[in-house]
């Protein structure tokens, strides 16, 4: 058990470290002159050479790459990713400022997406008529096919401009959260629903379901008592993908609805080539991904007695 824990934590730390190194290579080593990236692209040619040198020295670009890397890594370990080029504020507080708003959006959208996905899977499994099932099963595919920016704009058009039910932009109050939440939940629910529909169908055909039929159980009873837990488990395995979808979706959702948040901040940081801020965000996202996969790895055995047994005998060593 301890070994298992250590292995999983080690992997998670490796992912975060590698994300840091990868972004370092991409952002600080690959560009011909990283100093260029530190200025607004429109003004870069107007900057006097002595200012450039001063900035380069300030960021340590005049030193060997390996030293720069080690310095940055050392600082990063203490939670210091440098200062934002645009605002001049340290990167970490800048991100932490906007993080709650994105967390709220993402958590809400995830909850909604899970509800949608389970409703679709249950409806598809309990449907007796083939055409109803086909129709329901087509929904997730549609959900992932409509671009987030289009569904966002459609929502705005219908519910804000036509019906006036919800505010179109901004992040004041709970009502302003409704449209972005739905917009983000739709594409996130798609892959989860597809997986659930498939695993519900597989489990519904499995041997122990036949045994339950033979016991005299009813369709609803079988779905609730037998299929649900076995079929729900695999949804955890795509938690990482879901997290990625939430992040990618929030970039666009926050842009469309002009909401404050990590996604919109990232977009702005990339537009202005705010290198330290971009690196900080990417590492944060990778850390989030690693953390979520770690949690899944740790709780999965609790839900599946077969895995739990395998781990318990491992601990006997």
């Amino acid at each position, binding site marked *: 058990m301890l070994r298992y824990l250590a292995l999983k934590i080690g992997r998670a730390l490796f992912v975060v470290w590698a994300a840091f190194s990868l972004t370092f290579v991409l952002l600080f080593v690959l560009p011909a002159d990283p100093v260029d990236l530190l200025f607004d692209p429109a003004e870069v040619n107007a900057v006097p050479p002595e200012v450039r040198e001063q900035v380069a020295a300030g960021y340590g670009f005049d030193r060997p790459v390996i030293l720069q890397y080690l310095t940055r890594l050392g600082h990063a370990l203490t939670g210091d990713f440098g200062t934002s080029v645009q605002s001049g504020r340290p990167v970490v507080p800048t991100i932490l400022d906007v993080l709650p708003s994105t967390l709220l959006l993402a958590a809400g959208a995830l909850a909604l997406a899970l509800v949608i996905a389970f409703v679709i899977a249950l409806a598809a499994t309990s449907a007796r008529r083939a055409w109803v099932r086909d129709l329901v099963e087509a929904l997730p595919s549609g959900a992932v096919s409509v671009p987030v920016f289009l569904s966002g704009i459609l929502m705005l058009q219908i519910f804000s401009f036509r019906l006036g039910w919800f505010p179109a932009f901004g992040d004041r109050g709970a009502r302003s959260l409704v449209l972005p939440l739905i917009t983000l939940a739709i594409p996130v629910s798609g892959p989860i629903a597809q997986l659930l529909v498939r695993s519900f169908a597989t489990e519904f055909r499995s041997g122990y379901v036949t045994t339950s039929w033979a016991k*005299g159980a009813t369709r609803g009873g079988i779905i609730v008592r037998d299929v649900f837990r076995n079929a729900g488990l695999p949804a955890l395995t795509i938690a990482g993908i879901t997290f990625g979808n939430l992040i990618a979706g929030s970039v666009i959702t926050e842009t469309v609805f002009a909401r404050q948040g990590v996604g919109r901040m990232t977009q702005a940081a990339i537009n202005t080539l705010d290198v330290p801020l971009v690196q900080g965000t990417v590492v944060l996202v990778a850390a989030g991904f690693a953390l979520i996969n770690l949690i899944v790895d740790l709780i999965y055995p609790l839900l599946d007695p*077969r895995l739990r047994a*395998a781990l318990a005998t491992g601990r*006997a060593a």
Partner: protein
Amino acid sequence: MTDPHADRQDPLLRITGLVIDYRAGRRRWTPAVRGATLHVGPGEFVSLVGESGSGKTTLVQGALGLLPESARIRAGSIAYSGVDVTGWNDRRMALVRGNYVGFIPQDPNTSLNPVKKIGRQVIEAVRFNEPEARDAAQHRQAALDSMRTAGLKDAERVFHHYPHELSGGMKQRALIAIALAGKPKIIVADEPTSALDVTVQKVILDHLVRLREELGIGILLVTHDLGVALDRSDRILVMRDGEIVEEGPVRRVLENAADDYTRRLLDAAPARHSGRLEPASGPRPLPGREVLRARGLTKTYRLRGRGPRRELRALDGADLVVREGATHAIVGESGAGKSTLASILAGFASPDSGTVHLGDRELTGLSRRRLREVRRDLQFVFQNPFTSLDPRFTVSEIVAEPLRAFGLARGRRERTARVTELLKAVALDEEHLHRLPGQLSGGQRQRVAIARALAPNPRILVLDEAVSALDVSVQAQILRLLVDLQAEYGLSYVFVTHDLGVVRLIADDVSVMKDGVVVETGPVEQVFRSPRHDYTRQLLEAIPGAGLAVAGAR
């Protein structure tokens, strides 16, 4: 009812003229069951025998209302104690299933919910099938009673186990407990023991017989194994292509089968034959000097995860001697290490210690290149012909593969000629040359696999359960083919099997394995007539079809 004998008791289950179709396309249906009629009375043990594709499982699913959605009942009726349940919906059938008819499924390993404890699964079966509500303690008591009736001695302990913590036999008993929990009048068992070892099979089937006697319930046993059916039934039904072609008391069917197919099935059953099969070409050559010798083979598998208990000792000092032109059978139940031994002999795995000699060449520890040379002399036939042939290759490409790899036939024409010759040797003709494995039957595939193994002109064939996945009638043909090929090419066989009945037909020598050790070895007649080891005796007693052997010997 207009039945003049209305006062006579109705049978527990009566199926009349049942026709079940499968959807083959839009508005196209192919029949799987064509007008089957059968009945099972109280306290009666009836067996339904058929090979794969005969429609026996579909018939049973139809009787229980468990047909998949792609199937429909087109005609006929199903009645339990005179109540016609044909066309009942799930809700009404739920009242019949469990408390009128209990079902024992085929594979105990997939038929229990993996995330629920056994006790809860049995309690559910109790709860669904009682007329008035009772409290939890009574449910628990009823479940434990049912588990004890099913032969689980320490029911209290098993109650708190998850399915994966039990052996196959225990799981099947748990499923019997579930079937019994609703206090049914009839139990339908679909191949309840085909996933289990012979010794376990015997115990489970004997227990079913006892249940019938003690509880007076009717039993309908579905099986592919004529021997199993004959040993215990009052009546047997033989099914072929969706029709019941034979019905009658066991003794009558054995002595005087009315149907031609039944007689062929009886003839194909290994238990029917008392001696070894003789090749068609005449007397077989006498076994010569030893060609393959294994000494002190040990193999330990490390399972995922660490610790002393995560190791599996598959082989524990196994010895084996194979004589030239002879068949050496390796028998044992699952986990005995026989497949590990076979794959070490064939060079697919290497032992932790011990040696294998082919003639005077040592096989163990050879480099990849040297091993390849040895493989010209030693070939392997896999158990499952559905996985051992690349689905994208045609028959001629499959058989030509070793010719190409060993550079045995120069040029396309020579290769085609050799492939045709090999196919002829296994009784396939040229029309099969360009078929894909998916277009062949199981028996034909196994013939292709044998032709492929023969291509480099080997001296030894290692056959790993090579006939176990096949129907009896096909199995009989393949065994005959193997005997003929042996005489023709002077081959030596290492024949791995769990089926002692087959051993008698084909082998000269036999080694009995248990837990990675060879417990007994010697000439077949000697081991069968006077087994020295207890385990061998146990195995011999568990062979189904004792009745068949008697009838066949007459």
